């Protein structure tokens, strides 16, 4: 099961741009493994900017999907797997 969530978050990336630590609220969580990643151009005809998604295995067996907006470079939480 997973649920869609909205909210910005802080992300630390490694040398090739992959997340290695994410911060939600006051807490930093370590990325154990990048499980997958993909680009989505979204509704380009409406001016939407592309997003780079990552599915992350975090410490504590958490699996999150996060994305980075490719124009603002801001990070957002997208989905949490239960």
């Amino acid at each position: 099961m997973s649920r869609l969530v909205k909210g910005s978050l802080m992300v630390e990336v490694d040398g090739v741009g992959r997340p290695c630590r994410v911060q939600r609220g006051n807490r930093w969580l370590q990325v154990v493994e990048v499980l997958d990643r993909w680009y989505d151009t979204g509704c380009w005809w409406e001016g939407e900017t592309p997003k780079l998604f990552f599915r992350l295995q975090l410490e504590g067996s958490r699996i999150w999907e996060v994305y980075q907006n490719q124009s603002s470079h801001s990070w957002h939480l997208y989905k949490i797997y239960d």
Partner: protein
Amino acid sequence: MTQFKRGVDVFVHLHVHSEYSFLDGGSRIDSLVKRAMHLGMPALALTDHNNLCGAVKFNVRAREAGLKPIQGVEITLVGGYHLTLLAQNPVGYRSLCCILTRAHLENPRHQPRVTLDNLRDNREGLIVLSGCRRGQIPVLLLAHRYVEARKAACIYRDIWGTDNFYLEMQDTFLPGGSHLNSGLANLARELGLGLVATNNVHYAEKEDFKVHDVLTCVRTLTRIQEVHPERPLNAENYLKSGREMTSLFRDYPQAIENTWRIAERCQSALELNTSHFPAFALPPERKAENLLRELVYRGAQEKYGRITRVLCERLEHELQIIEALGYADYFLVVWDIVNYARREGIRYAGRGSAADSLAAYCLGITEVDALERGLLFERFMSLERGEKPDIDIDFDARYRDKVAGYVYHKYGKERVASVGTYNTFRGRSALRELGKALGLPGEELDGLAQKLPAYCHADQIRELVPRLPELRGSGLKADKFSLLLDLCEKVAGFPRFLGTHLGGLVVSREPLTDLVPLQEAAKGVVITQFDKEDVEALGLVKLDLLSLRTISAIEDAMSSIHRQDRALSYEDIPLDDPATYRMLNSGQTIGVFQLESPAQRALQARLGASDIEDIVASVAIIRPGPIKGNMVEPYIARRQGREPVTYLHPALQPILEKTYGVVLFQEQVIEIAIAVAGFTPGEADRLRRVMTHARSQRAMEEIGDEFIARAVKNGVELETAAAIFSCMAGYASYGFCEAHAAAFATTSFKTAYLLRHYPAQFYAALLSNQPLGYYPPHIICNEARRRGIELLPPDINLSGERFEVEPGERRGYRGKAGDISGGVAALKHQNTPPPRERFFHEGTSAGWAIRCPLSRVKGLSCEGRQNIQGNRPFVSLEDLVRRTGLHRDELENLIKCGALDTLDSNRRRLLSLLPACLEIRNSAEQGVGILFEAGGDVVLEVPDFTEEEKFYWEWEILGMNIREHFMARFRGELERQGFKSSRDLAGLPAGRWVKVAGVLFRPHRPPTRSGRVTVFMSLEDEFGLTDVTVFEQVYQRYGHLIFAPQTRPLVVEGTLQRQGNGISVIARRIANL
């Protein structure tokens, strides 16, 4: 094997789609080649979906750019899986052709599928990659079915071996990509297979993703807001640099290395410019050259009576060139085809530059005497040029397929195919299809598309909006269309689908599947996946066997004429008939082949043609080029002696004498170069081609320098040489092939002769062979009526399948219901000819009538027509209903259009009786007793339809008006308001202000030298056509009325212009009627 210079980031794209992936490629081959060169890549593959359509262009462009082309294809397997095949060499290319041909021809159209057996049978010379995410192995790996994926990989490996089968890795940032690639890597390790990285390229640059996405929407019939599994998720399928690819595959360096290793192994696969034309079947002891010589001389003997020295020299000259170029077989093949047509009584006419050949004339391929006309053989074929000859032959449209069938039978189905041709995105289609994909309303798009001129290219729309008044207020400038117009510009000229070339057939020595993939087009025709340029580049020779409805009409007219006058021979029609020239000079040429357009009618009315040379010139001069080049006026002035005929050099006189010193024909350019600058015939034709096709000022200057230098060396003064070249340059690009013009002119004059002397038969034949020529049936009918020919409605007791000529003056038989004596009597007298002198009554055909056929009746099925013709005569409506089984709507249409008028002229009464008649028939069919008889002896008193209603129904059901023209209904009111009819104009002086009204017909804007728009159009009324010229200023005010989506009757006010016998109106004001 090529060895590439191995830099750090050497990478070769081995999976690339171009515009020839038909709606699945967002960039042109040119852009892909350019991008690969820009990125410093040594090679590039082309792997379009299930076709090699782009192969020739890709190979030519890549080689020109210094890039190694690798020819491949992405096939679809049974089950829908994809697989990437690359040809290592010509053997591999042949395998690709065979695989694709089988996939297309053994499956329903548009659903090519490749079986494993097909792959096993044609495995030689291929390197195979496991495919994109739609490949069988990736699909199974993504579904976590590793064992099955392994099994599938083993099957492929066993077909091509570990050296030639690779697992294809992609990293286009799609979900599941990491899992897929690690699965592929595991398989590779386990099975000892190589990995190879590709990017499944669908466009050259990242921003072209939008084009690809919208084209995918068009292909999958989705709107941009809708989701579809085949739409791309992101813009990662562009032609990435070696550095980008190396970075993406840093964990799999061998996958990068293998791209250039494969590229090094692939050799040139496509062999261009080799000859594959078949040898003409001969007994072993006979040589094609000898047989050709024998046939040519035999033909010459028949045509000329004796072989003179001049004749012999010319024939020897041609035969030597034909033999030297190895085209004796080609001539024999064409001779054999026309011989077959002659044997079968199929009318034909050779056209094009082949008429420059005396040998072709002697073989009966063309009708133009090249010797008598002094035509240059080198325009058709020359040693220096060495190009493949191109012989075009027009056949009676009804039998063209029969002739093609003979070619298939003679050379074998595996060696003959029709040539493919591309339907491409143009302004209207791009606007409609892309707009729909973008979610714009269909009706709005249709309205806008209709306003676009037919000639508009998809990348011209934005430029035309402010220039054309009919587009100015269209809303196309609005922001909501901005993206659409951007996309239209990008797809301009993209191929939309592969269709069948009108007449082109290729015949090959080897089975065609060794050279080109074949597929099925509409109507089951097997076509090549290459268009005509590409098949020729490949070394195949195309035969153009064309359908020409004019020839069918000639055949029909001659049959009809022969029923009254057996003596007329079409072949012997005199080309100097004064009555025909009188008709041509009057400009009354509607229906005459090539001489009927408004511009041609205007020319004929001014030119004063008096021999066939004038007709040859007429055919050549009314073309966009000469009109744009302002050649028409000087030519007419000189022809009429209003301007002196001068020559820049005495050597030009014999060459330009027949065209009054004007360079009109391409052959004249060649002759001038020979006579003035001492060029050889082949060199001169090269000059002609450069001048005709020169795109740049520089190319023109270079050829000019060469001409002038050699002319001076030849004793011509520098200034004169420069002036001659300037004159040639001014006209050459507009020049027309004289041989082609001469071939057409003969048909033009002969059709004019038929119109002049047998107008009823000729117009009936034209009407039976529609669509044909410039004018639709209703205008031909109007013209026939104007010439005094009666138009008769369809008649269930008289009409056949085609328009037939019958004696007039018995029209309008009005028998009472149930009485068919009039109809039967008409049947009995149908073949009684009117007095012969009526044919020759100058300018009219009084006494003749044309009967409309049942085939014109909308909704009347073929079976229905056969029922009528097989069971007539009918004595009443009830009789017709009972004995034919026609449906209610068929019967209603027959009544409404007047086909039962000879049974009862009251059409409303017949309609009111119809339900009862149908009831009687149904009761009889069900075995129920008849309770009453329709009508019986009682004549129902029902008021008939009004004339307006009858007029409307005739137009609706027949697409033409039998009784009178639409405008005739308004004539009284128009006269009261001071309007003149087209007939009235003949009696008015030039310069007079006139008001005319009529139904608008075919407004068009030919190119002009100044670039300013001039619209030519016609207004049709009951007396004929009024030609109207609209200049730029008036057009800018009223263009929206002229080019409105729906044609309405227009009112034009302006001044009357007279030129020779021609009359036109220069428009000043235009309004809707």
